[in-house]
């Protein structure tokens, strides 16, 4: 009887122990499913989200669900799924759900109705009260050149991260920063789709959730209310005094200015005045009235006035390009002169030529370019950033700079200390970026190497959205094998005969030793 009892006791303790351990295992796995990390062991970090995306997604304070309306058979499905998994791993507020429209008909139809979709093959980023729809066609670049030979389109680039991060920013931000582009001086136009237009830049900044407007200072001599930054993009006619005053007042009040100034060369070979010289010199920046030449960094088939820049200053705007070692192309620039020590001015040189470059001031004899004694010697700065504010770059501030906005924001917060900024305080937060070139942002140039990143980074830095400094392009390791027939045969010899043969020889050796 006692033996039976003992056995019963033993077996129940045993079962309880086993069940307890199983429950523990299930719990551990549940926690691991909920809280996990993904590490990327590739040398070029292909499967790692860029710093920008990580900042954006980890700062989410409301849940966003990505609903993928795609069949697993779609060519982009794997890429989209893998990428969105990375976002989900980076934040608890980001989740992912796949709806296969071919198999989950009812669920797909319900969601189509809810999201008011006109077709499938899309990804919906659903933020509850608001959502963004990403078309799968917007996620990739294709090369159609093989079509004539009967081949299908070939995927040349996957832009998923830029597009998704842009959409998440859009959802997370309640207010879009307002950027106004001046008009009336022959500037480059946002609505011009030609090679000299800015439609690509408009799309790029739109993706980063900027609100872009045009402003004609001559007819409306005050910067529009709520403006965060003014962009002067390649004027060909000078500004007049009241216009400059409006801009100066805006900047002095803590506003942000991006001046993209191509040299305005007249027929006589002189450089015409932009009208902005006095304003810029207040901040210590002078325009060189020359064209910059850099024979050491030429672009093949272009004149020496078109060159690439790989000398970047240490600055948040250029840091990603420096790290990724991606140059930018500058077609026809004028040099910039700093009126003092950069530190005292709060200035940083963003781009400069190689030491072999110079600013060619003899513009009448451009057929025979040669460095003269009066020419500015290299390295010649072609882009300068000025930050009059507290230069704590690490602080990610969402509050844009203009007075109106600062007041609006502080009203909401009820913070009396910042409710009425003094003129000094306001100016202390001004930021300016001056480029001696405007062409690099045109449709014809924006897609080249690092130009788009440079443009997006500049505008994001101006409005203090350092967390949106652009994603540097990645260079995945491409492996192309092209073994000849002989080489294939020797590989075959190795894998079919040599390696298994060695194993058998080793086995025979062991066998004969044991027999002895």
């Amino acid at each position, binding site marked *: 009887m006692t033996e039976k009892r003992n*056995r019963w006791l033993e077996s129940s303790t045993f079962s309880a122990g*086993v069940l307890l351990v199983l429950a523990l295992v299930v719990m551990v796995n549940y926690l691991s499913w909920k809280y*996990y990390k993904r590490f990327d062991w590739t*040398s070029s970090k292909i*499967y790692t989200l860029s710093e920008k995306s990580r900042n954006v997604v980890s700062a989410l304070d409301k849940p966003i669900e990505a609903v993928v309306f795609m069949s*697993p058979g779609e060519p982009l499905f794997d890429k989209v799924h893998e990428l969105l998994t990375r976002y989900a791993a980076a934040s608890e507020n980001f989740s992912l759900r796949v709806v296969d429209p071919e198999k989950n008909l009812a669920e797909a139809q319900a969601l189509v109705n809810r999201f008011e979709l006109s077709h499938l093959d899309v990804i919906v980023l659903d933020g509850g009260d608001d959502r963004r729809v990403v078309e799968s066609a917007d996620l990739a670049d294709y090369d159609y050149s093989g079509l004539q030979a009967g081949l299908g389109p070939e995927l040349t680039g996957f832009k998923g991260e830029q597009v998704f991060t842009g959409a998440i920013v859009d959802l997370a931000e309640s207010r879009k920063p307002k950027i106004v582009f001046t008009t009336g001086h022959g500037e480059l136009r946002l609505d011009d789709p030609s090679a000299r237009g800015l439609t690509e830049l408009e799309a790029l900044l739109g993706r980063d959730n900027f609100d872009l407007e045009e402003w004609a200072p001559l007819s409306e001599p005050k910067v529009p209310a709520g403006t965060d930054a003014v962009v002067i993009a390649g004027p060909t006619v000078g500004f007049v005094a009241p216009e400059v005053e409006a801009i100066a007042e805006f900047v002095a009040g803590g506003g942000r200015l991006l001046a993209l100034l191509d040299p305005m060369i007249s027929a006589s070979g002189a450089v015409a005045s932009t009208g902005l010289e006095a304003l810029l010199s207040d901040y210590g920046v002078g325009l060189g009235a020359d064209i910059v030449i850099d024979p050491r960094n030429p672009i093949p088939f272009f004149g020496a006035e078109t060159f690439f820049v790989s000398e970047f200053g240490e600055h948040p705007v250029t840091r990603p390009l420096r790290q990724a070692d991606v140059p930018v192309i500058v077609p026809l620039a004028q040099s910039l002169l700093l009126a003092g020590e950069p530190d005292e001015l709060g200035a940083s040189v963003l781009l400069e030529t190689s030491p072999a470059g110079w600013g060619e001031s003899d513009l009448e004899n451009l057929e025979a370019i040669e460095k003269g004694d009066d020419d500015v010697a290299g390295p010649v700065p072609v882009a300068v950033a000025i930050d009059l504010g507290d230069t704590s770059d690490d602080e990610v501030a969402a509050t844009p700079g203009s007075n109106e906005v600062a007041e609006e924001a502080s009203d909401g917060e009820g913070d009396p200390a910042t409710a009425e900024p003094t003129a000094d305080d306001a100016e202390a937060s001004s930021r300016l970026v001056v480029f001696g070139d405007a062409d690099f942002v045109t449709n014809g140039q924006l897609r080249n190497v690092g130009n788009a990143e440079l443009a997006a980074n500049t505008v994001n830095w101006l409005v203090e959205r350092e967390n949106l400094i652009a994603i540097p392009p990645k260079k995945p390791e491409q492996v192309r094998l092209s073994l000849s027939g002989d080489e294939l045969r020797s*590989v075959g010899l190795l*894998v079919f005969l040599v*390696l298994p043969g060695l194993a058998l020889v080793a086995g025979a050796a062991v066998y004969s030793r044991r027999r002895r």
Partner: protein
Amino acid sequence: MSAFLATLDRELRAYFLSPLAYIVLAALLLVNGFVFWLIVSFLSDPRAAVGAPLELFFGQTFFFWLVLLFMTPVLTMRLLSEERRSGTIEVLMTAPITETQVVLGKYLAALAFYVVLWAPTLAYAGVIARYSSVDWGPVASGYLGIIGVGSVFLAAGVLASALTRSQLIAALLTFVILVPMFTFGLLENLVNNELAKQAFGYLNLWQHMDDFAKGIVDSRRLVYYLSATATFLFLATRTLAVRKWR
């Protein structure tokens, strides 16, 4: 401790001094060599897309899983069932050694042998490095995945071997545990319920190896392998313990 080391030593000798082990090694190399050679020939075709040969090699062909599903039962079938058949298990159980030491010693010997079986495939990476460039990070994570999946499979084999005195039944039982474990995850693509999809996705070994081969190391995979291994080994020790008091 010394009892554990003695078991480990005894089992390692049993593996490496058996001619059968080298036949298994040669067979494995032949199958893997064939897979590798296919991949290299395919990618050397100028019309083929640019691909990563080693990424394809690690788990993205069905051969990989076939080898794994058939090989692990063979490696572990003998471990405990043979002791039971020959009666040496009684000696072992009365010796001053715990069930955990026995199971761990035998398991680690099997794992060591498994690693040795895969080691020669490093030569394939060498071949690729000779004709092209190799990113060694994903190669390392690929092997991490192979060891991870292998450690679970071998632990299942140890449990099966503890359950029966017949080697053949042990091998079949291992196979019966492994096949559902492997196919379970594949159901991810067949179910519609979101929660079920995620749960199956968590167990989807094919997807796991896909990630490892690309160079992605996911903490979820490692936790799964470690906990599944620990569970199987724990159950194996309990099985031995049951025998003790029965």
